[in-house]
């Protein structure tokens, strides 16, 4: 199929960006979206032009590196799908496809479609862990954990940290990401000890990074490639509130 690609180009963090049109004539429906961009980049490089920078790595939907807004939707808006798993069979001959980076103040563009997501890492540094050192831990079966609780923890832990929730949110809120980490630990006995303190610390760092507030429209949940539920946001709010009331 033939496609027109309208892609955000921005040379560096403070440069002015713009949408640039590219044409591809021979796109196979079996290609992945990123393979289609590879083909475009090969063409650009052969012409001596600068390749389009985009983040990607595992191309299996698990590392969370890929991060494109395709036709206005993070990861293209396909259910439970990251950009790297979008295939061209979902597009038609003659389509104009827009490709943009995540848009959020807390995720500045580094080049073209690559954004800086280290704000997520800094949120994690502030308390996204159980405070145990290596060694000296009890036998793994010492504390039984009800299967349904362990399953909820796993649902939350499935977050790949891609940032689609932030990109989808009109407020660029990171509540879904932060609440997923809090949610994983609050459903496990190992994480309960620091439950309230963790919520306070992560929320404080989230605010410091410049992410917006949540107004309960749940675009984050819809955009999440791993189906993280917005219920975790409610649980996080509960922990945050309780933490501030009980241990201000």
């Amino acid at each position, binding site marked *: 199929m033939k496609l027109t690609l309208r892609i955000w180009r921005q040379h560096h963090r403070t440069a002015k960006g713009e949408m640039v049109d590219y044409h591809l004539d021979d796109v196979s429906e079996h290609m992945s979206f990123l393979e289609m961009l590879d083909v475009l980049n090969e063409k650009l*490089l052969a012409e001596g032009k600068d390749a389009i920078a985009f983040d990607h790595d595992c191309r299996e939907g698990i590392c969370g590196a890929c991060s494109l807004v395709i036709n206005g939707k993070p990861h293209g808006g396909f259910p439970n799908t990251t950009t790297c798993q979008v295939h061209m069979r979902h597009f038609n001959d003659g389509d104009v496809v827009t490709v943009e980076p995540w848009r959020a103040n807390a995720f500045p563009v580094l080049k073209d479609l690559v954004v800086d997501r280290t704000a997520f890492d800094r949120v994690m*540094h502030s308390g996204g862990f159980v405070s145990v050192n290596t060694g000296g831990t009890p036998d793994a079966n010492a504390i039984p954990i009800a299967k349904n609780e*362990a399953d909820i923890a796993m649902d939350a832990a499935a977050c790949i940290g891609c940032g689609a929730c932030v990109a989808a949110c009109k407020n660029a809120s990171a509540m879904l990401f932060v609440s997923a980490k809090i949610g994983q630990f609050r459903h*496990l006995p190992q994480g309960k000890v620091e439950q309230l303190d963790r919520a306070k610390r992560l929320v404080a760092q989230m605010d410091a990074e410049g992410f917006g507030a949540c107004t309960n429209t749940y675009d984050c949940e819809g955009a999440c490639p791993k189906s993280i539920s917005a219920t975790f946001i409610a649980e996080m709010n509960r922990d945050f509130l309780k933490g501030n009331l009980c241990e201000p």
Partner: protein
Amino acid sequence: MKLDAKVPSGPIAQSWDSHRFEMKLVNPANKRKFSVIVVGSGLAGASASASMAELGYEVDCFCFSDSPRRAHSIAAQGGINAAKTYPNDGDSVWRLFYDTVKGGDFRSREANVYRLAQVSNHIIDQCVAQGVPFAREYGGLLANRSFGGAQVSRTFYARGQTGQQLLLGAYSALCRQIGVGKVKMHPRAEMLDLVVVNGQARGIIVRNLVSGRLERYAANAVVLATGGYSNVFYLSTNAKACNVTAAYRAYKRGAGFANPCYTQIHPTCIPQSGDYQSKLTLMSESLRNDGRVWVPKNQADCGKAPGSIAENDRDYYLERKYPSFGNLAPRDISSRSAKEVCDEGRGIGPSGYGVYLDFSEAIGRLGQNVIQERYGNLFEMYERITGDDPYQTPMRIYPAPHYTMGGLWVDYNLMSTIEGLHVIGEANFSDHGANRLGASALMQGLADGYFVLPYTIGHYFASQKQTPVTIENAAFDNVEKETTERIRKLLSIGGNRTPDSFHRELGRIMWNQCGMARNEKGLRAALQQIPALREEFWKNLRVPGCGEDFNIALEHAGRVADFLEFAEVMCHDALERNESCGGHFREEYQTDDGEALRNDDEYCYSSVWEYQGVGNTPALHKESLTFDNVKLAVRSYK
């Protein structure tokens, strides 16, 4: 090059304990005076960085991704082994040790493998304490399953995302240490060379991938946790950015490279669909617990819809050839069998290079909901990529490069032949011999990082006196100058071909001549083709843009340049080893029924290669292997 494995004497079951006692300690108050550079932040790198920082060492950790959480360990699906024996099925540390030595086709170092089996149990305890959500039974205890090549259920898992959950566990421990300032994290930073001062690894040269500028870092020791080199084949299940550069640069600075020809081809991957293909996707081996592998008995049936081929006309070749292991036969054997039936012309799918993995029997026996619970996310992933629904029609699979058992040679303390340069995880050569068993890579990465290196590196610091070295040292000037010159050269060729086109061509040479099956003629041909391609690379490469910039083509070009040299070492190794063992199958050396034929009299050693200049045959050193505890035997899964 001197190879002293430093294996402790005495009975193997006590060797790690007695070694830990004999190793020197660093006083707690003095630990902060020692700094460590860790390159890589996957399971091995993140767990080592966190554990060393907890002990008090000053750690600088580097990764080329935007966050340590992206490392390719994350993609491991199936699980992690441990000898917990929770299912009461006769497992033990000794059995895990035995299975790993046998699975490695008797080409690993016994003492290392025993230690790995020993610490495996601590890993599970550690991960659970960190909040890793392993699968559980209704009674609240941990669930186990059996996994490729094992007859006991010793594999712990977290849905199909075990690697992700273990990596996030190690990442959370790392985050905690970054938060308290004991680890300084450097994302989007690629190590381009090693700095050796007075024979000791004392620093690295790094390219900041955003600014493009070179940076220098000095420390008391350097740890490489930089993963494997499957991307030498271009198409592999590895993430796109995985590369051999850090390990290869260390090799060029004097570190021995061991057994580079031991590469693992994973039997269950989605077949290639076209020339634009950028990578191959693994479908977890756990699928073989319930899926049955088959191809048509008759070539004439290959183009037909699988449902229309009668039961009698199907060849369940793994069940036929290996009745006791059946569809769970180890990876090397399953992969080779798939190649065999496809070479006979009985492969399926558009390319003819595919076999069926069929769940209809299991769905009939257990119901679709059980299969969905076990493998739902994998089935979805398969459908997303291929457009086929595996509940209705069998999956199509074919082997693909997946893991590399070879790597930088290390002694029992995980130190390479360069003093102070430690190598952990997939980047080293230890533990898996010529073939790795399923669910053992996660185990090894975390064993090295959590429970081995943090002890042994202290012994290194306490055992010798170091002179202070800063980044002003002349050695840093020289290495940075060489790196700058290399980048300038890559940018100034001004030819006609892209880095990717060279990488693809190299991948084809390696897959055809040094892939699932090798022979002398093909390897000799590859040793002609690779230098010719390398020569063309340095004459006809085109990398637009400049060095001090965010330049993805330049990043790729640097990695391809190293693959183009490294591939030759791999072929030399494969050519020198006149036997078949594990992932290394030499067609000249097979039994009458097509099984690998080992030659223990002549090849019971690890081959360690020493750099002799680009294009020159590297020098071979041998670490002979002794098997005092597991009797050398033909590896049979019949």
